[in-house]
């Protein structure tokens, strides 16, 4: 049976949901789309295809917030699905202050709806001008972004390019999977909203090729050949008040990878503060360079090593940083940029994990079951593709809070078998998730 696609439209008050709905209802796209609008929505739309309904939230399992679903949707959609004259698409608008979780969860828990409808995507409208203040003080605004498959960064005409870029970066750090479109007056080709295509983990790689790589507490590392006992670390810019740095003696450029592992550990230690003019040592300890505007320098003791590996919290370009010997900048022999920590302190983040090879199905099932039971309240969405030992097909996985679902994704064929898993949630512990996922490998 062909399932009718459902799009969930969410967004904070004033973000432009009504404008978008009016576009969808009036444009000549050839689709018959039923819109289920909240009775107490921002602005009511009078249209023959708009159904007004009041939210009726209920809990499936005696008070479990993760299993709160929409009873009104079950009744209304059940009614629509029985009709002879079916709709091509169903669009559900949530109120601006609503957590979209219960709407998505409804399609996980109600078997009749699951059989007949498929959630095509969650579309979140964001008011580019005002969202920052909501992100700081509203759980709902953060959750609406976290749940999104598509984000329309609307009212872009009211915000300059720099602010838009910063906002996109912040949103991307919260939800690495969503496609972000910039719009004014919610003007966007309707297929970009309705034809989301549901599950597309590959998109995360298009947006951020480093997304599935482990995050590092530093953004850059480089190896320099040195000959004397000291060199200078020189900075000309101070984008932040301070910056972490760790330096290791190494044998040569080929030691960058091993030094990186040491640096990860060093950056978890307490840092010793160093004002400009003071001394750093290539001893593997973490130092906090106090940054000040203008040209500043620190003496770095190399300990007689032939090469030193330097790892810095920010990329050297940001500080106009050089390593110099007797006033001459040294050339870097090997370097690597890393996927750094997020720049914002949002509690909502994305964590992506990837491992080549195969997973043990039972271990994976046990781990995910335990994980959602214990942490489900903080996990808004999960998506994954698994290669299970003994299974020639891809296993497609998705989940919302404590509800998880897996489906056959077709044969791997000649593609390399690997496992990808993405979490979007609150206060996610990357190390713990990474460790858990790795323990499931066959």
């Amino acid at each position, binding site marked *: 049976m062909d399932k009718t696609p459902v799009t969930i439209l969410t967004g904070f008050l004033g973000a432009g949901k009504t404008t978008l709905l009016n576009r969808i209802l009036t444009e000549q796209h050839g689709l018959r789309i039923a819109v289920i609008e909240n*009775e107490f929505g921002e602005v009511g739309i009078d249209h023959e295809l708009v159904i007004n309904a009041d939210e009726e939230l209920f*809990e499936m399992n005696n008070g479990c917030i993760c299993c709160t679903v929409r*009873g009104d949707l079950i009744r209304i959609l059940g*009614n*629509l699905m029985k009709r002879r004259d079916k709709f091509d698409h169903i669009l559900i608008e949530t109120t601006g202050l609503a957590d979209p979780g219960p709407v998505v969860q409804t399609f996980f828990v109600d078997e009749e709806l699951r059989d007949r409808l498929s959630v095509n995507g969650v579309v979140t409208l964001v008011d580019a001008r005002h969202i920052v203040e909501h992100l700081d003080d509203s759980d709902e605004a953060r959750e609406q972004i976290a749940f999104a498959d598509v984000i329309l960064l609307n009212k872009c005409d009211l915000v300059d390019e720099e602010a838009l870029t910063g906002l996109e970066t912040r949103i991307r750090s919260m939800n690495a999977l969503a496609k972000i479109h910039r719009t004014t007056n919610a003007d966007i080709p309707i297929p970009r909203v309705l034809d989301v295509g549901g599950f597309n983990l590959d998109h995360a790689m298009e947006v951020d090729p480093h997304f599935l790589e482990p995050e590092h507490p530093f953004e850059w590392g480089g190896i320099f050949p040195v000959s004397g006992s000291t060199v200078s670390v020189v900075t000309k810019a101070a984008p932040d008040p301070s910056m972490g740095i760790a330096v290791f003696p190494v044998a040569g450029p080929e030691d960058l990878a091993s030094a990186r592992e040491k640096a990860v550990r060093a950056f978890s230690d307490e840092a010793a503060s160093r004002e400009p003019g003071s001394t750093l040592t290539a001893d593997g300890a973490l130092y906090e360079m106090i940054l000040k505007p203008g040209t500043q320098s620190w003496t770095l003791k190399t300990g007689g090593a032939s090469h030193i590996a330097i790892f810095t919290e920010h990329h050297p370009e940001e500080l106009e940083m050089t390593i110099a010997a007797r006033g001459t900048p040294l050339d870097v022999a090997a370097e690597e940029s890393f996927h750094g920590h997020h720049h914002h302190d949002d509690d909502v983040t994305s964590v992506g994990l990837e491992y080549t090879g195969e997973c043990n199905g039972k271990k994976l099932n046990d781990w995910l079951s335990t994980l959602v039971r214990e942490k489900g309240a903080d996990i808004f969405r999960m998506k994954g593709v698994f290669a299970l030992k003994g299974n020639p097909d891809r296993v497609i996985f998705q989940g919302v809070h404590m509800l998880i679902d897996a489906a056959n994704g077709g044969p791997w064929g000649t593609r390399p078998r690997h496992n990808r898993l993405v979490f979007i949630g609150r206060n996610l512990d990357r190390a713990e998730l990474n460790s858990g996922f790795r323990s499931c490998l066959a």
Partner: protein
Amino acid sequence: MPRLTEIGPLQTDDHILALVWSPDGTELAVTPATGQSVLVTPDGRVAGRVDGHALGNGQPAWFDGEWWTCGFDGRIRSQNGKTLPTGRGIIEKLSTSPDGGRLAAGQGKDLLVFDNAGATDASLRGLPAAVADFAWNPSNPAEIATVGAGGARMFRLGESEPFARFDWGGASLSVAWSPDGRWLVTGDQTPSVHLYDFTRDYPLHIQGYETKVRAMAFSPDSRKLATGGSSVLTVWPCTGPSGPEGVTPVQLDGFDADVLVASFAPDGCQAATGDDTGVLLFFTFDGDQVVRRRVRRDAGISAIAWHPKDPLVAVGHNDGTMSLLVLEA
């Protein structure tokens, strides 16, 4: 078993959502999910048609001498073009009070109650949850129950606060009040029913169903409660001080799928029931004996309505057809 003679079928625009007889039995309102409702006489003649509501119809009611319809457009209108004032939000059902003096409709968090002059003084507005369903007390036309997220609330008209509450935290699909006023039953979104015994101020929760309980019907004497929720009809006794509590129900099989519809005949001796595949089962209750008659229909059963006086039952199907079945002795 009586012989069945079929009148029809009548084809409508969509699957049959509701079948409602006028109180005197002279007309049957046949309401499909979308499109025109058809008024049919007991001999199968089409007596009239009523335009459908945009986006779909709700359950109609006979009130103040004419048919009133409602729908997903949030409107209430009569067959003669009169309208009643409503707000925004879908209206899934109209129901007339047992004395015929009032018409009720659930719309969002409002329970609209109209009198014969169209006044809405008795309406209940801004309830804590959307009105998923409601039911009049058959033994007291001044009492009405609503169900929504969290449970049931029982009101006396003119009072804004419920005189009784029945909270369990879940949600319901439907509610019914026993003819003697003793029991209130809800069919829930989870596979269960909740019962409330007014005489004891006592709630019961019956679990163990396989699916949501869509079919619920009290016998006219209030002694039996028939429920669906699986491919058997489960009949609970509602007699004695404890009703169904601690009692093994009668389970009647013969269906091929979930029982979706159940309705007792006015004399209480028979029940007509149907499933999603088109199995129509008549059960005749004779003391402890139950005699069944199975009729295979061409489409799933979506609505059943017994004529208020005559041995006649209307059966609606999910393919949009409706037939009248005459039960001849």
